């Protein structure tokens, strides 16, 4: 465990995800539409796998590298991760 306690509310996960995606796209966070398919806002399959890595580092969990293929929007990802993080013992 990393030892850091992360805020794992849906809102906190969402705003962290938006921050990462804004970083990759080099755009202001306010421009990231949380309901738009990631691939349509410029995050291709490779970015999606990189994002899985970021999630693993941030929350100290293991997720499928294809996580963002199956949960293809910020909101879908935030909901999925909230579920995963909420259920870890």
């Amino acid at each position, binding site marked *: 465990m990393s030892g850091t306690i992360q805020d794992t509310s849906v809102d906190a996960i969402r705003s962290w995800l938006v921050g990462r995606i804004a970083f990759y796209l080099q755009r202001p966070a306010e421009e990231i539409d949380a309901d738009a398919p990631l691939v349509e806002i410029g995050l291709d399959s490779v970015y999606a796998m990189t994002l*899985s890595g970021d999630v693993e580092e941030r929350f100290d969990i293991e997720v499928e590298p294809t996580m963002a293929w199956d949960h293809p929007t910020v909101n879908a990802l935030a909901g999925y991760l909230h579920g995963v993080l909420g259920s870890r013992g």
Partner: protein
Amino acid sequence: MSVDAAVPGAAPARTAEPDLETYLGDPHDPANPVGYPAVLAADERGELLAEGERALDGYGLNAEFVPRALGGRFDRADRLAQVMRAVFRRDTTLGVGYGVTTFIAATPVWTSGTAQQRRWMADLLLRHGKASAGYNELAHGTDFGRARLRARPAGDHFVVTGRKEMVGNLGRADAVTLFARTDDRPGSRSHSHLLLDMAALPAEHLRRLRRHRTAGVRGVLLGGLEFTDCPVPADAAVGDLGAAMETVLRAFQVTRGVLPGMAVGIVDTQLRTVLRFALDRRLYGLPVAELPHARTTLVDGFLDLLISDCLATVVARALHLLPEQTSVYSAAVKYLVPKLLQEAAHRLSVVLGARSYLRDGPYGIFQKNLRDLLAATLTHASAAVCQATIIPQLPRLAQQGWRSSPPPPPALFRLTGPLPPLDFGALGLSARGVDSLTATLRGYLAEPGADPVVGRLCRLFTAELDRLAEICADLPPRDRTVIAGRRSFELTDRYATVLAAASCLGVWRHNQDDPFLRDTPWLLAALSRLAGRLGVDPGAAPDGLERHLFVELLTRHQDNRGFDLVNRHLAG
């Protein structure tokens, strides 16, 4: 899909395992149907050598691609590359046009196919059937996510419309592994593999497209197919609908991880051809081989071949032992080894002089191989594609993997040691920032009895890794992707060079019972050469190092043994 569909050719004999190198015979024998004269003549005609295809049918080459559990001989990725070298030593065109194409088409079926699909593909291959890998569309190339050929589900079947172009054997294959769009939405869940039994498809819905002519591997049949509302049975889907991208990311680790080891056979022939010339030809009262520049070039070529084989063999073994890490290694080996081999061949051409481009005569195979090597580099994944596969993983490797990964099991390097079965499902889509191979370097430095000279060279590579870690941890976001600038691509080159150094070290360290490999001079020379590649000064070479390796090269040549790690006796 019918399991007992008819495939041309007779069933192979299931006797003791034959030796392909011996079977294919002396390549210089003019009467050998797969010797250099026949190979060169077929290349001049732009044809795949028909006698060669018959010979490989007779040997049952396809069985090398079929898992042992399905009745074939594939149980070790490193062995597959070594067996295929016998073909690549003689004719890269056959190696690619008969062998690799089928191997690439079959691997996704082994990875994600049902038991019935695997059985069908295995039977087809064991009866010398041909399989073709239907991925490429000229407009999209390796940008698979944008592939457009469409398979629309319609009740109990798919309706396929679109084209695949510039694909080996597509016009004559018995089976095609087709990469098709099954969902119109953009993204990575919109493509599926379909396994096509070509004899069962209605011909009126298919049109063969023109063959593309090439500068290298001129006999390879690069063709295309256009499907128009072609019905395909629903049970042709390999794996779940929408899962093709994932299958590709696994299956291609195996194919990309094995191909470079096959191509080592091409440069084995290049080196032998040039050495033969250099020993026969006298200039200034000496055999060319005794001229200092020529001798250095020959020894460098030998080292490049050994380095290439170290990386190729270790990565092939990693598919069995470190499958969660091979997404990076398989791209690195497919990038670096063809490049090293090509550079070696070009340097060797200087020794051969004008004969390096003569299309006939005793050294004619050299110019063919020089052209064919380019194809070996481009086949399946170009250098840039492989580098782009590594780039997104660099930051995470830099943050942790290069400092704290556990060292690999010694079995990774023990060339004659057993390997666990290759589990296609265990191949990781991402290495998750772990890199055990480079941990070999730090591991050696921590050993109490480490050789100080080896240690000094190892430190050059751990220092390089530290430099890389610093840069890669802070890569700007745009430089972490396939559309990164040149700097990121250069970083992958340097990283792959460190991986090669770690492979050489491990092979030396863990094969102390091999009379050649346990010898330290080759390792010192190989590490120095790789350091030079990084632009790092390796320091002065020990006295007599080059002479030592030159004597080894000459001895192997006189005994007619290969120049690779296998060091086996060759036919002829």
